[in-house]
């Protein structure tokens, strides 16, 4: 009798150590990545002042006077990502609402695998699509020479973020209790009022999470934007200008830059900025989701 209890306690102890170890490992990895970015960035800021870095309007490390202004890259990333979200968020949430609340079972069984398959397309293939199809389409539509621009990137990133946004939004909408729907309908609301004024607001914390994940996908995507946005590290004036995102810049320049030069460290600095943006967006999203959760049982 006593022995079994001892055994269980020992197993318990081992499992606790195991969970602690895996937890620490994850935190360690994250911390390590952060430290690597930070230390290399500090090395960069010894050579270039943060003021020049953030306010300079040119990114041209190879020129004689080596310009390290992050603005063109930051604006490029912002433009492409915001554009992608403008397309993907309404489309994704509405598709999710349609799938979960309106679509007949058979249509749903047909659509869901297709949407999930979208997530499995490699980013190179999407980039290719941008070069041969979407880009030329945009060029024709707006009567411009070249469709490799921010809008092209936005459309492609929207396509890539959609499966994430739809799948997670649908889960969020599905998990809204039936009691909320019944409460609304019993008051005489119709189906649309119930979907838009009760179900979607009730699913909002989950929808925010869905958008955050989609946004993370878009912010971090490299290959597609590298192929499809023209790669001009110049401050863009509109969605129809060629852009070069932070990720594309790192991917393009990292292979050619000599080890531990200012230029080399600069790439860590812009990566750190991207990391900070992603983190900030997630924290803000979490804050709003938390506030909304107070209204739920």
């Amino acid at each position, binding site marked *: 009798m006593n022995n079994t209890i001892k055994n269980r306690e020992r197993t318990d102890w081992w499992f606790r150590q195991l969970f602690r170890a895996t937890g620490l490992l994850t935190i360690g990895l994250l911390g390590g990545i952060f430290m690597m970015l930070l230390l290399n960035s500090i090395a960069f800021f010894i050579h270039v002042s943060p003021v020049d870095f953030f306010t300079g309007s040119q990114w041209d490390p190879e020129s004689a006077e080596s310009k390290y202004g992050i603005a063109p890259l930051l604006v490029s990333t912002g433009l492409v990502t915001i554009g992608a979200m403008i397309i993907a968020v309404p489309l994704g949430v509405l598709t999710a609402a349609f799938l979960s609340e309106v679509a007949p079972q058979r249509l749903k069984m047909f659509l869901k695998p297709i949407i999930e398959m979208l997530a499995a397309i490699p980013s190179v293939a999407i980039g290719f699509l941008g070069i041969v199809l979407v880009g030329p389409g945009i060029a024709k539509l707006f009567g411009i020479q070249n469709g490799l621009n921010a809008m092209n990137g936005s459309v492609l990133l929207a396509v890539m973020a959609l499966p994430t946004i739809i799948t997670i939004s649908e889960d969020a909408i599905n998990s809204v209790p039936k009691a909320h729907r019944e*409460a609304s309908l*019993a008051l*005489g609301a119709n189906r649309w009022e119930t979907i838009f004024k009760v179900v979607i607001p009730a699913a909002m914390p989950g929808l925010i999470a869905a958008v955050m994940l989609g946004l993370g996908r878009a912010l971090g995507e490299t290959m597609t934007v590298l192929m499809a946005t023209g790669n001009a590290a110049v401050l863009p004036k509109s969605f129809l200008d060629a852009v070069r995102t932070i990720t594309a810049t790192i991917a393009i320049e990292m292979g050619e830059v000599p080890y531990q030069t200012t230029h080399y460290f600069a790439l860590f600095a812009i990566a750190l900025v991207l990391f900070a943006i992603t983190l900030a967006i997630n924290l803000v999203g979490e804050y709003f989701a938390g506030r909304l959760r107070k209204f739920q049982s």
Partner: protein
Amino acid sequence: MSDSKLSAQGLNLFFGKKQVLKNISISFKKNQVTALIGPSGCGKSTLLRTFNRMHDLSPDARIEGLIKLDELNIYDKKIQVTEIRKRIGMVFQKPNPLPKSIYENMEYALKIHNFPKQEIPALIENALKESYLWDEVKDELNKPAVQLSGGQQQRLCIARTVVLRPEIILMDEPCSALDPISTSKIEELIVRLKKDYTIVIVTHNMQQAQRISDDVAFMYLGELMEFDICNNIFKNPKNELTKNYVGGHFG
């Protein structure tokens, strides 16, 4: 029967092949409380939900027979279900406030029926007073409704129904999730509301049925076994099954 407000004639309901309501004819009188009693699974909730067409949501439910609100056939194709549900409100077994603030819960009901904006605050205050909730919540109307106690939530759900001035209020075991004090508050409320509304209430609590109801309907396995004034059902039941049930011998 002249003062009948809501009635069912020859009502049959099937879920797929299974018949859950069998040839039910019943009529509820205006400004009275009618209690539906019977053992678990006999079809009380199912019957109640036919009156505000909640079964419209389940594709496998099939209904035969006639249900009339005054002279109106509520399953008439020409009639909008939203209008029916405004006139026949429902309070559920488990309090189901929407994930919004107290005020927004009330406001939602009024907004979907396009009540004029400037009238809304007064209507809300009035309905909360009628539901004996105003004094408890008037200083925290913007608080999430789920932070109220269970009994307060249920009174909010009643207030949310009452604010639309329905003609009938259907209640499905509205006190089953509540403590005795909240229960007596709601019973008091029900008795007061019958002045203005016709109330149909499902209950498993025989004392409660005796305290609040004028008429009582006893159901058994999908059939209406006996329907009479409260006193007769409890003191002088005609049906052997009714007698056993109200005497606490089964169910």
